[in-house]
């Protein structure tokens, strides 16, 4: 449509010109095609599906899909912290936290009616690890998984891992009906990464025990589920659930207001506040998502300028309160370290604060009394209600106050990713959402420990310049302990990561849940995003 609007430039008369300019001025929106139906639940979302194979998928929409069509051994309770039984009715952990034994629910059956057995768990876990897909990191360190009997499965890991059960609550650790999947080319053994040919089959079929089954997927259009009539738990009142592709917050809000959809998932707080319909409920709840600025001192174009002192000065120059206001209209919270608020070890971490005078002092001491110029490349995206473009313009203004100029270069996600993993980007802005409840995932991703994604990006060709050995030691201790003791170690890691000044969290935006008032049970889940089976119509 946009293209049509623009090709009108060939028209030489007033009316097309007028229409064209007006259309651009008032940015038109895609019309909705769905009618409201009490038996059908329609959800508006900008979908980011990369795959529908549990061992390959890695996206927010995938979390919703996988938690609806498959089940994990354990899942996250509505408090978003404690673990509750799902396919496993109970589990035992040895005192060293190296062996985990799960006892499967005897009633559990797959959508084709066959029972969920230990062999399926063994096969699914081995496949997840061996496929070396994006979510395979969840099972890093798993040495064996054995089917003790048809309903008991035992997992062994290399070293103590107090977070293992949390990790397998991530939707990607879904249990697949192995017989069906094998029939369609799925492979779980060591050759899986090359021998598995089932990805396309998974785009058209699901093979899980969840409350729904996949009824159809059309990329960039819709993802459709049908109720699993063989489901052994409480069945959903909806026979059909449709996730329909609606790109932006405003279009989602309009679809919701017009009754075309029941739930809109990515409405930002400003848009939510402007909605006027009375039969729509909007809840603003804290999320574990966050957006951050990251420095890569080892990037080719950073030219050695981003020393620890300079990074600290830049972090001190940011107006964190203003950032909250400008990015999400105050609907969010500040976040101290790369571990989101509410996760183990985050209590008591010092909040980031602006201190222009000290920032200038540090910059002068680092040999840049008049500042310097750097380029900032980031994805031109609007995520979790935060427009990264706006956020970076605020950062640009804040840094201008200490004489630092940044040249903003928003890019498409693939271009940005290529640069980040190529020569590196001195200053960037990105976002992160949890896969399960546990602080370990953040240490594994953000800590300056050799081998983590961000240590690699920040260090570039000289990773040793950014590695902080304390973090690896503390992480091992955190994994070897449980409860409060573990949280205390994560707290120390948090402090170390704050000191690193590589990842500067700016905002943890609140999440807007906007849905028709006749729905009940709509909630945000840290593992599963939107647990669809809990939703009912009043």
């Amino acid at each position, binding site marked *: 449509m*946009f*293209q049509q*609007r*623009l*090709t009108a*430039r*060939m028209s*030489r*008369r*007033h009316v097309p*010109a*007028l229409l*064209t*300019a*007006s259309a*651009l*001025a*008032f*940015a038109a929106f895609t019309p909705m095609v769905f009618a409201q139906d009490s038996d059908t639940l329609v959800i508006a979302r900008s979908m980011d599906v990369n795959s529908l194979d549990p061992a390959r998928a890695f996206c927010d929409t995938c979390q919703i899909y996988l938690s609806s069509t498959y089940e994990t051994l354990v899942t996250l309770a509505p408090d978003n912290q404690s673990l509750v039984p799902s396919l496993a009715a109970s589990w035992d952990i040895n005192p060293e936290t190296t062996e985990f034994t799960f006892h499967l629910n005897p009633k559990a059956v797959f959508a084709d009616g066959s029972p969920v057995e230990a062999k399926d768990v063994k096969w699914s876990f081995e496949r997840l690890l061996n496929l070396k897909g994006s979510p395979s990191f969840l099972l890093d360190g798993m040495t064996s998984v054995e089917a003790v009997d048809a309903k008991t499965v035992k997992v062994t890991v290399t070293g103590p891992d107090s977070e293992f059960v949390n990790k397998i609550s991530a939707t990607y650790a879904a249990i697949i009906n192995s017989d069906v999947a094998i029939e369609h080319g799925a492979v779980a053994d060591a050759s899986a990464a090359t021998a598995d040919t089932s990805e396309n089959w998974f785009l058209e079929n699901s093979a899980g025990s969840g409350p729904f089954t996949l009824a159809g997927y059309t990329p960039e259009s819709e993802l459709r589920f049908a109720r699993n009539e063989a489901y052994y738990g409480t069945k959903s009142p909806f026979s059909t659930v449709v996730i329909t592709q609606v790109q*932006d*917050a*405003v279009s989602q*809000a309009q679809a919701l207001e017009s009754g075309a959809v029941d739930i809109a998932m990515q409405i*930002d707080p*400003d*848009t939510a506040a*402007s*909605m006027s319909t009375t039969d729509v409920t909007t809840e603003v709840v804290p999320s574990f998502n966050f957006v951050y600025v990251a420095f890569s001192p080892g990037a080719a174009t950073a030219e050695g300028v981003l020393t620890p002192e300079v990074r600290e000065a830049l972090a001190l120059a940011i107006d964190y309160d203003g950032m909250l*206001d*400008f990015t999400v*209209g105050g609907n969010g919270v500040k976040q101290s370290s790369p571990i989101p608020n509410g996760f183990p070890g985050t209590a008591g971490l010092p909040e980031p604060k602006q201190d222009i005078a000290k920032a200038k002092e540090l910059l002068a001491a680092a040999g840049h009394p008049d500042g310097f110029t750097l380029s900032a490349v980031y994805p*031109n995206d*609007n995520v979790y209600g935060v*427009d990264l*473009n*706006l956020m*970076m*313009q*605020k950062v*640009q*203004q804040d840094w201008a106050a200490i004489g630092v100029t940044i*040249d*903003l*270069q*928003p*890019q*498409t996600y693939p271009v940005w990713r290529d640069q980040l993993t190529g020569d590196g980007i001195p200053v960037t802005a990105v976002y992160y959402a949890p896969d399960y409840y546990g602080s370990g995932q953040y240490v594994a991703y953000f800590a300056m420990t050799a081998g983590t994604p961000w240590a690699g990006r920040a260090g570039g060709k000289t990773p040793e310049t950014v590695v902080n050995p304390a973090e690896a030691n503390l992480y091992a201790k955190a994994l070897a302990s449980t409860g409060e003791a573990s949280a205390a170690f994560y707290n120390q890691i948090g402090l170390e990561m704050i000191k690193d000044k590589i990842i500067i969290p700016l905002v943890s935006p609140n999440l807007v849940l906007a849905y028709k008032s006749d729905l009940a049970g709509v909630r945000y889940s840290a593992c599963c995003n939107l647990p669809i089976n809990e939703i009912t119509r009043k």
Partner: protein
Amino acid sequence: MADLIDREPAATILVRPVFAAPEQHRRPSRGTVAWRLLRKLPPTALIGGVVILFWIICAATVQFWGLPDPLALAGKRLQEPSAAHWLGTDALARDVLSRTLYGARFSVPIAIAVVAAAVAIGSLLGAIAGYVGGWIDGLVMRAVDVTVSFPPILLAMTVSAALGPGLVNASIAMVIVWWPIYARLMRAQVLEVREREHVEAAVAGGAGSFRVLTKHIMPLCWTPTLVNATMDFGAVVLLAASLSFIGLGATPPSPEWGSMISEGASKFYNWWIAFGPGMAILSVVLACSFLGDGLRDLLDTKER
């Protein structure tokens, strides 16, 4: 005769008697001709001209108008239009009116530069192709065919994406999109004019190809180009805004109209953010269309 042709531009010869005119019929000055033409323009074209003139003056002098800094905070974010902020403030609390007017400093020079470059390149290549003919004509016109076979926005997007975001790259992309139109226009005119007698006379008089082309043919070929260029000025503003809208043109925080509309689109309920730049684009495009139509009616004898 040869002397006369060589001394005077062909265009002048056509409107002047060969023999010296009496004193009282002296050729009117250029100013007088312009004024007469201006008076013959339809009112819509005059309005268009005034609007374009406004934006050109705005682009040249807006920094002296005492407006708030278009990049600095101006109070609260997302304020509705008020006496203090006639078009409200955007999501970063910047004055939308100020940003809209400063936006002319991006759009107007880009439009002038792109149209000028496209006219220069296209007309030169078109004129050479039309005059010389043969394989040069074939080569140029096939290049034109290839370029116009792509939808303009798609080609501009591809070139911009390949070169990277930025207004300079977007301008290069737009010149690549636009030059073929002028090549075709100029070639068609040259093909027609080169058959006229005065050209044959010039050739017979021994004038070189370059001289014949530049002095005797091209001066008679500019009317369609001028009309088209006037209209394309608006189209370039629109395409530049479109490229910025999708993130391939201006980089933030430039108050470029397309990128402002893009910001406004994500804050749709705060309508005033996109209203200012939207109206600016509308006014330029419409003004160019009005003026272009007026000029065509005035200059193009075939349509009368």
